[in-house]
């Protein structure tokens, strides 16, 4: 789960990381009221998960209540778009924050390094821009440290990194507190990523987190029932919404560009099936992994999800059962096709592995003939999609 900036900052504050004074509003009148009660210069920041919201016009400045009302009215409900996010994202809330006078901007993050199997802290004095850009242009400007989880964070790590990354002296005193807090958020909430970009040194010498990017591990969310309310805040994309509605894992369905529907068991076989279809000259309309041990009901719902995409001209169901049992899959296919109102597309089934015999018997009783291999299935489904030939 990716958190909105205001949510990330809420976690930061709990861990003692300084953030700008501010308020979350969802109504232009509240924006005006807040500025009226707190005279000064304020930044109105659109709360979206996509990157590059500034370039997309999602950040405005207001010095008085009327201005705040007008700009908030303009932003709330607006769909922000930019080159990386052509579909855009609708603004539901604004974070109104005090405008700070910036002396210097830095970057700090903690993520999981897969290869090293350790949390990695990354720092650069070139904050406020895309860190991947910095890494490509000036890799030496990024200082890294791999934290030993048994030791955890210790202040020397912040000192070492600050000197290695040539941080302006003004950062040094506050940095151990900031990185220590960030590590606590990372560990306590089971995050995949915590990032402050920019970490700002203000003209009057304060160090504050001006932005917050936090990505939590969905598998660990059961430990944080208090964050449940935030789950609905972030937009799930269409694929995730479809996966949830079908009863699939969050990342088990993805729409692609082709016209051949795919259902497979296991992510590897799902990707392999997409590849096989491309090898045969076609293109997959989707990736769909029914996961391990799927029951008939899930297979049926998955079929309905795939055919709900009008572009799908033919479908390839490719099952190699391990923990998944062939009879359950076959039952699901037969049940899916039994409905009168279901859209039927030319269908190729390949079914092998655990309980293959039982599964084939169920398909045979429904007058369906599975193919023997993935290559053969891919070839046939591509022919069907091209010619509209029914089996």
């Amino acid at each position, binding site marked *: 789960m990716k958190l909105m900036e205001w949510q990330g900052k809420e976690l930061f504050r709990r861990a003692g990381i300084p953030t700008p004074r501010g308020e979350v509003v969802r109504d232009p009148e509240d924006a005006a009221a807040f500025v009226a009660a707190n005279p000064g210069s304020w930044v109105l920041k659109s709360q979206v998960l996509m990157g590059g919201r500034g370039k997309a016009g999602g950040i405005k400045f207001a010095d008085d209540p009327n201005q705040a009302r007008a700009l908030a009215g303009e932003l709330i409900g607006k769909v922000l778009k930019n080159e990386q996010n052509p579909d855009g994202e609708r603004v539901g809330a604004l974070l109104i924050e005090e405008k700070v006078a910036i002396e210097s901007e830095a970057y700090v993050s903690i993520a*999981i390094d*897969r*290869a090293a*199997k*350790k*949390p990695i802290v990354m720092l650069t004095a070139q904050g406020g821009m895309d860190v*991947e850009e910095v890494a490509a242009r000036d890799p030496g400007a990024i200082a890294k440290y791999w934290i030993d*989880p*048994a030791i955890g964070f210790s202040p020397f790590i912040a000192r070492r990194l600050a000197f290695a990354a040539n941080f302006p002296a003004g950062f040094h005193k506050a940095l151990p507190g900031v990185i220590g807090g960030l590590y606590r958020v990372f*560990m306590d909430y*089971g995050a*995949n990523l915590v990032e402050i970009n920019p970490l700002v040194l203000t003209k009057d010498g304060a160090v504050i987190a001006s932005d917050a990017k936090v990505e939590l*591990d969905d*598998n*660990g969310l*059961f*430990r944080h029932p208090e964050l449940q309310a935030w789950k609905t805040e972030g937009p799930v994309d269409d694929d995730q919404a479809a996966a949830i509605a079908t009863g699939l*894992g969050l*990342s*088990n369905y*993805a729409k*692609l*560009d082709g016209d051949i529907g795919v259902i*497979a*068991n*296991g*992510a*590897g*076989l*799902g*990707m*392999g099936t*997409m*590849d*096989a*279809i*491309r*090898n045969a000259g076609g*293109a*997959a309309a989707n*990736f769909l*992994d029914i*996961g*391990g*041990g799927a029951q008939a009901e899930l297979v049926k719902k998955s079929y309905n999800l795939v055919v709900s995409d009008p572009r799908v001209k033919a479908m390839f169901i490719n099952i*190699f*059962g*391990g*923990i998944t049992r062939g009879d359950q899959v076959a039952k699901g296919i037969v049940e899916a096709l039994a409905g009168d109102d279901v859209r039927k597309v030319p269908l190729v089934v390949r079914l*092998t*592995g*655990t309980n293959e015999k039982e599964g084939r018997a169920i398909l045979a009783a429904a007058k369906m003939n599975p193919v023997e*291999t*993935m*290559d053969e299935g891919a070839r046939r489904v591509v022919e069907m999609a091209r010619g509209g030939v029914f089996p």
Partner: protein
Amino acid sequence: MSIWVDKNSKVIVQGITGREGLFHAQRMHAYGTRIVGGVTPGKGGTTVEGFAVFNTVHDAVGATGATHTIIFVPPQFAADALYEAYDAGIGFAVCITEGIPVHDILKVVTTTSGMRIVGPNCPGVVSPGRSLIGIMPGHIFKEGRIGMISRSGTLTYEIVDSLSKAGLGQSTCVGIGGDPIIGTTFVDCLRAFANDPETDALVLCGEIGGSDEEDAAAFVRDHLPTKPVVAFIGGRSAPKGKRLGHAGAIISGNFGTPESKLAAFAAAGVPVADRPSAIPGLVRDRLATAR
């Protein structure tokens, strides 16, 4: 010979009274695996389908001399199950469970040195004809001299099936799992296979995302000059930025791309098959040149 798993492996099943645990305990037993019992807290002293059930791993090891475990418990209890196995002196654990919090598994794999963990979210390990500790369909495997390592479960079956049908049996097949953090990597497996005199060639089945394949290619180049290796990469037609099932299988930016993996294998002299059915032919070619 084989690696890690053979006829002497005495296996317990953690979560044996659950639906999947029991189903696969029976299948493993039918395959010939020495399943010596299982663990379900509160059901110790009973039997289920002929398997002795113990309250703790400690009890199970004491009574049976178990050396290996396979874990089917729900994700929120999986780290605890692995720690319990480690505490009881188990040397080899296969973790089937999917959806374990990544911080849990990170801590487990960095604090249980001495116990080899395969997985999580993996299909297990099989030394054909000897022992199967996992959820793979046993009948597709065939005894032989090809070692197989894979990040994916079902793609492993696909490849093994084509190897077996081509007469290329396997010494050991390891499904390492598709999660971002795993206990046993490609390189760990390669290192073990390198010292196995009864493994003549290796098949490595990777996928997009991460850098495990690049690390494996570097290891082959530097440390495996004589054993032929053939690779396959799943997801070559996948678009960038889409997370396809496995939490680990995502191309972000220029990271984890098929191009990077293909280049690494090319630099190591490892041919990459464009489809699973092409693998047996490549293995035969490589074995013929090696002789």
